[in-house]
């Protein structure tokens, strides 16, 4: 390259760009990415909310680190908050109170940090649901699903470690629950607890240790995984919803420059602004009301942050009496069953793309999203999972539900136990039927048009409602899905059918047996003139 020749008159901007490009080759990146097309849909914003709330967390969290002291040394509080003056507490708690009551804007940043953290986990969860219900996890995006899943787990870990840092009464009780759960793990539980807390609970180490995880290790991993996650989005190019002109081989939307720079960049500020409004008007985690951690007192109606609710709920819903002494050791199934059960649940979430790919035998790339109704079994499985999670989550507030609605504690627990066990099956059945019904409705609209609301009286006195045909672009959205058939049992080279094949065929049948075929051209022609 001959730089002297490539330089053009462009004033200062041109000169600066040239300076930069000659040292970084940035023009290549601009050429590749500047006009890259992204499709538009509101549901694609959920992942953006997650990304932006993470940026907000980093910004507000950095501010907090300048004031927070992760020490469990005992001091007598001497800050501005009068009711706690002179009370013995850890330095961590005292510095959290100082951030809240003695640093201008400190409380605001604490609340921004906490609200953004709640939003971070929530938006990741919704983003995952969007990915799931539209089938965006299918090839080639299975690995990005795994990365996203790990990010979800890490986000919850970040949330929990951060929640524990102020060393207040509520977070200390949360840690005590973790300690109790860890101790229930066979063989190694006692020692893990001992190592985690640096001796007996609560010890003087845990806040410092969680702080290292919270501000260094976990964020570093999250940043790296987000970078990888986004890199894959660029490599795969974004999925798009079915629509006229859209195919599996193109991506239709707006370019990064200028439209997405404006819309996505602007959206960051909107998310930040909404978090700021929350932090200005709504108190979150008022540690001054709880006081410092003390193992003896506790307040009624203790609640973890929302994303820990499902685990706390699982602990509450376990039936009584599941703990035995066997072979000279204590087996705490009242802790193991929730631990293993939740492990299995999130394991299925993690592996779902691979399970579905195996059952369906589908090895093609998918860039057009499924409308949830067009994958009834998958959508129904998702609804079952959501119901299971929701039941556990509600259980974390069982006492609040009981006091608020004047119900018995026992009644609420028993009801939620039923919801968690039976609810998924009911949700599965209903969702699948609803999906099939919606597909039938789509067929109906394609073949006979939509109801126009115009009532016409025929000469014979009969009233009919006029049906209007949909235009071909609308119609395409309703007919452009693939019709799958269940896997057939075929003998292998030795003329045998392996048991695994049998299982697979069975699952495939379960997956695809009930289905509504998309309207074809023949049917469409036959239905013409049928619109009235």
């Amino acid at each position, binding site marked *: 390259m001959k730089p002297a020749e490539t330089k053009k008159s462009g004033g200062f901007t041109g000169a600066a760009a040239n300076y930069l490009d000659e040292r970084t080759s940035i023009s290549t990146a601009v050429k590749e990415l500047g006009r890259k097309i992204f499709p538009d849909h509101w549901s694609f914003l959920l992942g953006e909310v997650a990304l932006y709330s993470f940026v907000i967390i980093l910004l507000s969290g950095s501010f907090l680190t300048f004031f927070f002291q992760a020490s469990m040394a005992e001091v007598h509080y001497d800050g501005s908050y009068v009711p706690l003056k002179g009370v013995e507490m850890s330095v961590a708690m005292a510095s959290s109170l100082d951030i809240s009551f003695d640093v201008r804007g400190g409380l605001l940043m604490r609340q921004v940090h906490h609200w953004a953290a709640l939003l971070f986990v929530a938006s990741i969860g919704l983003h995952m649901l969007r990915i799931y219900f539209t089938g965006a996890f299918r090839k080639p995006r299975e690995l990005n699903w795994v990365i996203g899943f790990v990010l979800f787990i890490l986000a919850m870990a970040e949330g929990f470690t951060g929640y524990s840092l102020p060393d207040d009464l509520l977070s200390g009780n949360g840690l005590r629950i973790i300690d109790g759960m860890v101790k229930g793990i066979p063989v190694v539980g006692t020692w893990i607890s001992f190592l985690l807390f640096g001796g007996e609970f609560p010890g003087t180490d845990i806040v410092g240790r969680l702080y290292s995880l919270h501000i260094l290790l976990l964020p570093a991993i999250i940043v790296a995984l987000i970078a990888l996650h986004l890199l894959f989005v660029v490599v795969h190019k974004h999925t798009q919803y079915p629509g006229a002109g859209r195919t599996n081989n*193109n991506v239709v939307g707006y370019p990064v420059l200028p439209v997405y720079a404006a819309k996505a960049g*602007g959206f960051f500020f909107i998310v930040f602004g909404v978090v700021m409004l929350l932090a200005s008007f709504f108190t979150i985690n008022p540690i001054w009301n709880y006081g410092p951690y003390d193992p003896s007192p506790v307040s009624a109606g203790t609640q973890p942050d929302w994303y820990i609710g499902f685990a706390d709920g699982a602990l509450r819903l376990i039936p009584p009496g599941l703990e035995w002494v066997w072979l000279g050791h204590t087996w705490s199934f009242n802790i193991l069953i929730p631990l293993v059960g939740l492990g299995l649940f999130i394991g299925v979430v993690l592996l779902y793309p691979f399970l579905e790919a195996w059952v369906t035998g589908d090895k093609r790339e998918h860039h057009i999203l499924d409308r949830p109704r067009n994958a009834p079994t998958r959508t129904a499985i998702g609804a079952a999972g959501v119901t299971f999670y929701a039941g556990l989550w509600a259980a974390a507030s069982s006492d609040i539900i009981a006091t608020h609605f004047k119900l018995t504690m026992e009644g609420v627990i028993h009801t939620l136990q039923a919801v968690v066990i039976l609810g998924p099956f009911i949700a599965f059945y209903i969702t699948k039927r609803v999906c099939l019904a919606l597909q039938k409705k789509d067929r109906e609209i394609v073949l006979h048009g939509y109801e126009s609301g115009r009532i016409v009286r025929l000469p014979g006195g009969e009233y009919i409602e006029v049906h209007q045909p949909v235009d071909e672009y609308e119609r395409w959205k309703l007919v452009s899905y693939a019709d799958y058939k269940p896997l057939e049992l075929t003998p292998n080279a030795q003329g045998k059918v392996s048991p695994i094949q049998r299982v697979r065929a069975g699952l495939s049948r379960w997956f695809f047996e009930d289905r509504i075929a998309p309207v074809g051209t023949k049917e469409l022609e036959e239905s013409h003139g049928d619109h009235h």
Partner: protein
Amino acid sequence: MASDETSGKDLTPADSSSVEHVTAAAGTAVVARDAVANPGFPPHRPRVTDLDPRAEKRAERTVYTLFYLSIVGSVFAIAAYMIFPIVPEDPGSVRLNNLFIGIGLALALLALGIGAVHWGKALMHDEEGIDERHPVRGSDETRARAVEIFQEANTESGFGRRTLIRNSLIGALVVFPLPAVVLFRGLAPQDQDPVALLKQTMWEKGTRLALDPSGSPIKASDVTLGSSFAVIPEGLQDLEHGRLEEKAKSAVILVRMKPEDLIQSPERESWSYDGIVAYSKICTHVGCPVGLYEQQTHHLLCPCHQSQFDVADHAKVIFGPAKRPLPQLPIAVDEEGYLIAQSDFLEPVGPSFWERQ
């Protein structure tokens, strides 16, 4: 825009990328032979701002007004920082400080964001562009070259041929992180046995029961019928080290009820005093303090996971996830009338652990 419109006609069916995928009829799409054809892109619909110059002008005004508003918000936040300082010992000032800095910042952020989005939606070029997709896998050539590179590297290094070198390298790589794992033993003190620690508390014969948090000893005569107290061992508050650790094990709840309401097994008859019983306050489920005592029913409720214990009947579990009753602290009265412990708890308190039995 970004590419020509030709790809709109490119109506290959959804499974076009599965060229190599011949074997499995398994679950692949049953593409109906008479599938409806993709109609191609619908005609572009211009926006109001494309058609009406006044609307365009209005949108422009909205956008720059919002950006100016954002500047106002930022300046307001800075002003609020100074106008609403935190006055020591005045919580109201904290609220105003929080509220007004926050409102300023929220205005700055929201106006900026909404302005930018509105600019993008109402004024920027609105026709959608099209990018072509290609299969994610590398081309056959690229893949062949990649394989070749690995083969060359293998030949040139002898990685596959010199098996002793390879295997010893793998061995070294597997073993080298182990010292780091061992170092983590230092997370907990070397000279303590967790099991022994978990099996004992600060209570011993003659320790007086003291009020939490004041630490003043309790006379049996001060415990009125139906009342309950949070109790700690006397001297706990004076501990230099390990105060919270000891409290986490030795916290006790003291309850007095009518002796005739109390169901007592023969071996525990001497553990109470005139209807006064003392039980560990640490839940046997996962260790929350069992704080809520219901006088009428003699039930203790753990607020964390709703285990309920019947104080009248050995603190047995009557509901919830806990299995074991709360351990009972045997108590008596000394010559001055103060409540004392007869001994430590006779079993470990708190949540279960593997070596408990």
